[in-house]
């Protein structure tokens, strides 16, 4: 294990070390003090633990690596991540997992507004509540919420699945409750078991998704564009 300490190293040095490290390395980052853009742009399988809370855009564009934050994270956690796993033991701020293509994000606490905005395949699991406009224009992937969801959940959603165990303040445009089929139940169980989450009752979850009434694109018209 390599220790990288913010009391001794700059953010740029730490990110450079992480990005240039060998596959399967293990780093422990100390004293992050809410720093922005920590552990961004990693594109190999390494393990990073961050002891303390981080600021904006932590683990953005992540590919392959496993990143654990023992604390809370500011806005834009794991923005546009491609693969790998991010685990935050505290809360996360706005737009966690925004436009994420793949991989998974696990939040033990609450997520703030716009969680999973424009998500494109990432799985996001929030053990607490999520704020308003979560999964806004979500295209693919799964948002699993153990607590409550704020207003306008899934507004203008395309094809992602939203699973909620708590209350939903309100649904956004074109988002409806859907039947929890066997296929979706096993999808939910898969997502949770991949993230090593086992303490839950699958029967408490409801499923939400797109009514597809806002779809105006017709493939026959493609040649016009």
């Amino acid at each position, binding site marked *: 294990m390599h220790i990288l300490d913010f009391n001794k190293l700059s953010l740029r040095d730490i990110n450079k070390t992480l990005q240039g490290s060998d596959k399967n390395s293990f780093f422990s980052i100390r004293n992050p003090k809410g720093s922005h853009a920590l552990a961004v742009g990693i594109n190999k399988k390494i393990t990073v633990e961050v002891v303390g809370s981080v600021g904006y855009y932590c683990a953005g564009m992540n590919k392959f690596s496993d990143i654990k934050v023992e604390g*809370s994270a500011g806005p834009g956690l794991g923005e546009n991540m491609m693969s790998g796993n991010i685990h935050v033991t505290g809360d996360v701020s706005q737009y966690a997992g925004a436009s994420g293509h793949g991989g998974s994000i696990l939040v033990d606490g609450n997520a703030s507004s716009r969680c999973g905005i424009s998500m494109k395949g990432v799985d996001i699991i929030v053990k607490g509540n999520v704020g308003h406009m979560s999964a806004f224009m979500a295209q693919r992937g799964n948002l699993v919420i153990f607590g409550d969801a704020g207003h306008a959940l899934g507004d203008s959603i395309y094809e992602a699945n939203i699973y909620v165990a708590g209350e939903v303040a309100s649904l956004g445009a074109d988002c409806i409750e859907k039947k929890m089929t066997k296929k979706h139940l096993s999808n939910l169980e898969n997502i949770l078991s991949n993230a090593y989450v086992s303490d839950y009752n699958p029967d408490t979850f409801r499923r939400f998704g797109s009514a597809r009434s806002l779809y105006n694109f017709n493939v026959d018209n493609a040649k016009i564009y």
Partner: protein
Amino acid sequence: MCGIVGLFAKKENISTNLGVHLSKMLESMSDRGPDSAGLAIYGKPLASKTKITVQSGSPKHDFQKLKKFLSAKKEISFSFKIHSTHAVIKLDVKQKGQVTKLINDTFPNLRILSVGKKMEIYKEIGKPAEVVKRFAIAKMKGSHGIGHTRMATESAVTTLGAHPFSTGEDQCLVHNGSLSNHNSLRRELIRKEMTFETENDSEVAASFITYKMNSGKTLKEALESALVELDGFYTFVVGTENGFGVLRDPIACKPAVLAETPDYVAFGSEYRALTSLPEIEKAKVWEPEPATVYFWGH
């Protein structure tokens, strides 16, 4: 962008070091607001006294003249302390009206930044580190204080465009965001005899809250009516004689973090603003909900 900080002391170990903590917090928000900075500090109230904080662009000349002018008025007893471009005049509460009128009528170059039993406002253009040094904020004590670092977007970088804006005696407001209906609201408030010093949108928010409270609303009610009538983005922190309040607009894209320990309640635009506080690792840290009024008071 802009950065906001706030600190409310529950115990003496925080209030005796309030200025030190607020200075560090404000400096940490330099990236969010490098063009100007300001603070409102709530010190110990003196029995039947009030404080007037005035600011001048040419302090050496103006403050000497003002001091001489006030000394010539035998009926006024006062103390006068200069902090760089600001001066704090302490005087009997009964003479408050007379002296503010005298300053406004006789000294057009002086601006009254605040009036109150506890509150003093310090603000200037320049980097936050320079501003806190200029006023020796680190030496100040108090029960609570709020601060702001500004990145000007819709009006000029001037001393008067810096925050906090006083919203009445012992009351002030700092703002991160931008209001879209401030021009029409300003016109409306001018018709209701409110006065303005700048073209700044945040001054309109401050004036709006003052107007509401002057017409008998509580701070909570005034902030709730802000939710209805102010259009735009905002995270507000308001300081009062007893404490501070927080309000975010319903969309809440302007950041805000709160932290509470048995010793203090702290506000920061980012977590970075709070990392210099004692025992922050053990604090309860959370993000205030949109469209919800929070308040801590002594």
